[in-house]
């Protein structure tokens, strides 16, 4: 099967590409960022998904499946640019897919869609609406992209659409939201809070996306792996030092003194958990994770010298 990955230069997307190539698919990708020394058998088109050149790739390649991994979060770009990439890019990919005969579209979204807050339930299921935009407005364009992709389920009945809401990933690339948060030796916590975090090893996350391509489940699916772990345990077990600070002080220190530069609203995500129920995806695809929570954290500690 011909698979086109949008955002192929991203760390997780590269692993997805390799996994799918190894599964026997003909893999190519779009990204305005370079993937130097892209491995044999994987073609990378250096184009922006929102530009005309991207449609040319669809026209000439005529992929069977598109995997959309070209969304970005608030750590990568600010306001308008992020919205253009997330919402505009998603729209462009769906339009090209429809026009050029794509049969299956996989949107790889995030579990942060559900939002974090004091009255947010543990183990979100796919039928829940997004919350938390009031306190974390930077999430709005990612949520809009997810909802736009989700309504393709009725808007484009001939297209098989799979929406994945993936938990955080940790692994050798040391990229991603959780890895960025754990980058320093000292990791801030909000004093008096210790939320659960849910994560998958990168290889497991890549396998999950590849499984979605192979099994073509139609619908929205949370993708989760091991049991969630309290943030303090993640910090301790990866060899970092937790620095619990009163919220009012922490707000002033973000981006300074070696602390990560997070949007203010992201503090909700280190106060309250976002935990999803991955049962529907497991049932639809047979997915099981191979690395448990202890292995993921131990490997990460060894990898990063924590």
């Amino acid at each position, binding site marked *: 099967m011909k698979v086109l990955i949008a955002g192929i230069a991203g760390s997780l997307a590269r692993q997805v590409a390799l996994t799918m190539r190894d599964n026997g698919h003909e893999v190519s990708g779009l990204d305005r960022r370079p993937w130097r020394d892209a491995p044999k058998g994987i073609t990378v088109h250096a184009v922006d998904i929102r530009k005309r050149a991207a449609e040319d790739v669809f026209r000439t390649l005529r992929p069977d499946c598109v995997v959309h991994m070209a969304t970005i979060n608030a750590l990568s770009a600010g306001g308008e640019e992020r919205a253009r990439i997330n919402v505009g890019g998603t729209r462009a990919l769906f339009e090209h897919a429809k026009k050029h005969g794509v049969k299956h579209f996989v949107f790889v979204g995030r579990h942060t869609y559900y939002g974090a807050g004091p009255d947010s339930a543990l183990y979100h299921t796919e039928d829940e609406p997004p919350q938390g935009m009031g306190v974390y407005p930077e999430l709005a364009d990612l949520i809009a992209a997810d909802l736009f992709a989700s309504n393709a389920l009725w808007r484009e009945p001939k297209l098989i659409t799979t929406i994945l809401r993936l938990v955080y990933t940790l692994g050798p690339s040391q990229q991603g939201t959780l890895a960025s948060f754990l980058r320093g030796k000292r990791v801030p916590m909000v004093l008096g809070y210790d939320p659960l975090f849910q994560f998958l090893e990168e290889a497991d996350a890549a396998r999950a996306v590849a499984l979605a391509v192979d099994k073509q489940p139609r619908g929205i699916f949370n993708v989760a792996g091991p049991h969630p772990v309290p943030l303090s345990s993640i910090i301790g077990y990866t060899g970092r030092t937790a620095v619990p600070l009163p919220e009012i002080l922490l707000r002033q220190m973000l981006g300074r003194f070696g602390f990560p530069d997070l949007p203010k609203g992201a503090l909700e995500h280190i*106060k309250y958990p976002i935990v999803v129920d991955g049962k529907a995806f497991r049932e639809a695809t047979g997915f099981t994770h191979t690395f448990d929570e202890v292995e993921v954290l131990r490997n990460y500690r060894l990898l990063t010298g924590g």
Partner: protein
Amino acid sequence: MARDEPIKDLVNRLELPFNAFGVDPYGISKKHLVTFFGVLGWFYRNYFRVQARGIENVPPRGRAMLVGNHSGGYALDGALVIASMLLEMNPPRLAQGMVEKFMNMLPVSSLWSSRTGQFTGLPEHAERLLFDERLLMVFPEGAKGTAKLYKERYNLVDFGTGFVRLALKTKTPIVPLGFVGGGDAVPTIYNSSFIGKLIGVPYVPFTPYGIAAPLPVPCQVHFGAPMVFEGTGDEEDVVIKGYVEQVKARIAELISEARQARRKRVRGGGPS
């Protein structure tokens, strides 16, 4: 009286799926439970000298819903019922209450309520825990129940109906309980919602001696036989209210029994 087995051993005997970090899938942590019950167990055994009767009515395994009365002040009764499940049951069980949202909004309280399995009272939480064969603890009087004044301590205020619908939907037995002593421990004469608003809680109780520090009075909790209702949870209000009234009436009886037993303990000089 509660068994004298060390708290750590009791926590180790909880039949919950703890992982290598000592944390279960909901974030309940062995380490936090040991500390929490270490403090609570001392109060249960020595300060409030709680006497629990009918503990054999609580199923040792599988889904069940403890439904009881608040006795005033604040949710001291809830904490002591949770303690009774660990200290008196064999095997010990963790009762999981449905707490007010403000508990999860406040630092420290958010952490400890989460790590000890006392989650925000959301229907999603309650349903999931029951389908997961946990022991849920519900006080259908809600915050109006904890806000009872000293003179109202044995009264029951209006019950919500959600717990019966949930029990029917999840086919869960309801174990009624009557708790007495909380109103004497925290003899509330006034609740200030103004001060409560300032610190982010529904109200702050005041006693004749000022702050609402609990007095060392004996407490009594009686558990009744499980009540099982047939249905889907989608019945009309009039049907549900009928079931709620049955549970409420049974709790009123248990309160009455517990009052008598407690009176005997206090007057008779027996083990209190």
